[in-house]
C-alpha cells in the first residue's frame, strides 16, 4: 500500500505495465474488478487515459458567438472552451498561472477577458495573459507576460458539431481516432445539413461509482436493458398494452472499434418508432418517421431503418443514445465517484414543438430524476459499494458473452457481433489496458490481438 501522504506518482509505482495488462484477460473473458476501485490505478488513468485521449468538450451550439465560453473538465482538469473572433475554438486550463486559482467561475458566458478573482491577472479569450495588476510597481516591469499565458490544450478538433480536445499533441487526428465510429455517429449527428443543437442546459449530478461502469454500458451493454429497464418501459407504455407489446427485440448488431475502444449496439428490426414514441414522445417519433426519406437519401436505408434503440461510447467518456438523443460525459472524481454531465441533443432544423418534446422526453427518462437513469445509476453504485469488500474485489468479473463469436454483416462496417455481446466491452477494456500500459499512439493504432488465439 502507498504510504500516507504519498503523491500520485508514488502511488502509481506499485503497478507495472505487465500487471496492468493482466487485469483484462480477453482469452478467458475475465476482468479484475480492481480496475474500478484501486486508487493507484486511478492516478495512472488520469495521466495515461485522460491525458492522452480525445475528450468531449462541448457541442458547437453551446458557444456560437465570438467570446462565448463553456467551462468543463478533461478528467479532473478544469478547462475553458472559448470561441474566437475568427470562429475557431480554443481550450485552455481554467487555472491562473500566478497562484493556480480557477479563472472562470461560471458554467458558461460571453467575455473578452478572464480575470482571476484572487489577484486580478487577466487573460484574453485565447488564454493569453494581457494584464497584471501593479506590473510596473510590483514586478518592476520585469514580468514577461508572453511566458505566462493559460496552459493551452494543444489539440482541439470537431466532428459534426462535437468539439473534442486532447492534451497530447502527438495524438492522431480526431477523424482518424474515430474511424468506423463515424458511420454510426452520423445516424444521430448528421441527419441533415443543419446538424444538431443542444436543447436547454447541462444536467450535472454526482454519483458514487467508477466512470468505467457507465462508459462500458453505453459501449457494449444492450443485455441489461430488457431487465433493468423493464419497469420504466412498462411505466411509459400507453395504458392497457398487452405483455407481448414489451417483448424485447432479439435481432441486432454490435460494433466495436479495432483498437480505439469505441463501441455501439442496436436492434435491426424496424419497430416504426414505437419505443421512441413511448420513451421521448409521440411527436418526436412522428417527426423521425416523417424524416426517414430525406435522411435515407443522405445516410442510406440501413442507418435510417436498421439502427434502432442504439447505445454508443466514444472512448473513454463520451456516450450517447441515438434516437433518444441523450449525450453525456462521465467526469471522473476519484475511483469511486463521477460527475455526470448530461445534454439533450435535438435536430437543429426540427420544429420547435418537436425540439421541446424531445428535450422534455430526454429529461423525463435520462436525467438526475430520469426514470431509466435511476435503473442504471442504482446498478453502478451498488457494484461500487460491493467492491469495498476485500473478497469481492478479488473475484474476477465475467466478460465472456459472445467470446469468439464475431460475425459479419454487409450492411455495417467494422468488427461486428450479435447485439447481446460483450465484444465491445472487451475492446473497451483492452484499449484501456493498452493505454494504461503506456503504449505509444503508433502502437495503439494496431488492432487488438484476436480474442481467440
Amino acid at each position, binding site marked *: 500500500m502507498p504510504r500516507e501522504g504519498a503523491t500520485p506518482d508514488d502511488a502509481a509505482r506499485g503497478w507495472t505495465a505487465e500487471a496492468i495488462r493482466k487485469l483484462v484477460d480477453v482469452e478467458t473473458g475475465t476482468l479484475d474488478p480492481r480496475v474500478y476501485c484501486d486508487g493507484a490505478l486511478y492516478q495512472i488513468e488520469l495521466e495515461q487515459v485522460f491525458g492522452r485521449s480525445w475528450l468531449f468538450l462541448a457541442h458547437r451550439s453551446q458557444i456560437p458567438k465570438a467570446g462565448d465560453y463553456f467551462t468543463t473538465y478533461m478528467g479532473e482538469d478544469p478547462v475553458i472552451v472559448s470561441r474566437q473572433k475568427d470562429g475557431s475554438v480554443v481550450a485552455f486550463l481554467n487555472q491562473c498561472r500566478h497562484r493556480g486559482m480557477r479563472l472562470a467561475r461560471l458554467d458558461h458566458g460571453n*467575455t*473578452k*477577458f478572464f*480575470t482571476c478573482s484572487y489577484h*486580478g491577472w*487577466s487573460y484574453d479569450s485565447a488564454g493569453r495573459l494581457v*494584464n497584471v*495588476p*501593479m*506590473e510596473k510597481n510590483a514586478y518592476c516591469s520585469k514580468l514577461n507576460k508572453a511566458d505566462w499565458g493559460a496552459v493551452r490544450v494543444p489539440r482541439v478538433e470537431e466532428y459534426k458539431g462535437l468539439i473534442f480536445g486532447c492534451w497530447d499533441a502527438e495524438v492522431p487526428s480526431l477523424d482518424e481516432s474515430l474511424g468506423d465510429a463515424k458511420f454510426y455517429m452520423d445516424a444521430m449527428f448528421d441527419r441533415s445539413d443543419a446538424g444538431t443543437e443542444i436543447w436547454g442546459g447541462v444536467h450535472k449530478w454526482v454519483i458514487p461509482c467508477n466512470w468505467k461502469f457507465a462508459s462500458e454500458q453505453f459501449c457494449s451493454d444492450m443485455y441489461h436493458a430488457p431487465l433493468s429497464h423493464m419497469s420504466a418501459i412498462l411505466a411509459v407504455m400507453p395504458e392497457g398494452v398487452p405483455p407481448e407489446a414489451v417483448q424485447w427485440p432479439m435481432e441486432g448488431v454490435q460494433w466495436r472499434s479495432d483498437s480505439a475502444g469505441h463501441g455501439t449496439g442496436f436492434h435491426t428490426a424496424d419497430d416504426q418508432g414505437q419505443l421512441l414514441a413511448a420513451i421521448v414522445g409521440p411527436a418526436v417519433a412522428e417527426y423521425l418517421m416523417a424524416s426517414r426519406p430525406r435522411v435515407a437519401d443522405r445516410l442510406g436505408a440501413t442507418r435510417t431503418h436498421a439502427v434502432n434503440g442504439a447505445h454508443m461510447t466514444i472512448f473513454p467518456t463520451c456516450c450517447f443514445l441515438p434516437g433518444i438523443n441523450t449525450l453525456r460525459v462521465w467526469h471522473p472524481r476519484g475511483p469511486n465517484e463521477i460527475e455526470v454531465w448530461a445534454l439533450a441533443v435535438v435536430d437543429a432544423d426540427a420544429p420547435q414543438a418537436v425540439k421541446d418534446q424531445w428535450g422534455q422526453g430526454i429529461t423525463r427518462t435520462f436525467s438526475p430524476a430520469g426514470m431509466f437513469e435511476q435503473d442504471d445509476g442504482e446498478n453502478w453504485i451498488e457494484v461500487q459499494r460491493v467492491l469495498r469488500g476485500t473478497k469481492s474485489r478479488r473475484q474476477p468479473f465475467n466478460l465472456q458473452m459472445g467470446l469468439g463469436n464475431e460475425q459479419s454483416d454487409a450492411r455495417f462496417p467494422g468488427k461486428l457481433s450479435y447485439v447481446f455481446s460483450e465484444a465491445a466491452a472487451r475492446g473497451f477494456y483492452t484499449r484501456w489496458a493498452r493505454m494504461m500500459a503506456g503504449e505509444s499512439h503508433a502502437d495503439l493504432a494496431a488492432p487488438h490481438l484476436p480474442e481467440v488465439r
Partner: protein
Amino acid sequence: MNPNTVRACAVDSLKDGEMQPVAGTVDPIGIGKAGGEWFAFENNCTHDDFPLTEGVIEDAEIECPLHGARYCLRTGKVRAVPATCSIRVYPVHVVGGDVFIELPT
C-alpha cells in the same frame, strides 16, 4: 467650435453600445455611443492602465473589463473601485455625418 477639435469618427460607424479608440491623438481617447448619446473619454483605466474601449458602455457609464472599475462618462468621476482617480472626458459635437471631439486648448 474650439480650434483644437479633432474628428473622431463617422456618425454611422458606431452602433449604440459600441466604442472604439480615436486615431491620431497624443493621449489615448475613446469614442462611444450609449442611449443615443455620444461620449469621448480618456481611453485608459486609471486603476491599472487598460483601454476602456475594451469594456462595456451603458447609461452614460463605462466599465473596465478587467477588474470592474466604473466611471461616469459625463463627469469622468469614479463610480466603482478598484479605480480611485477619475478619467478625463471631452465635449462631443456631431456636425453633419461626423463626430468631433473638443480637446483642451
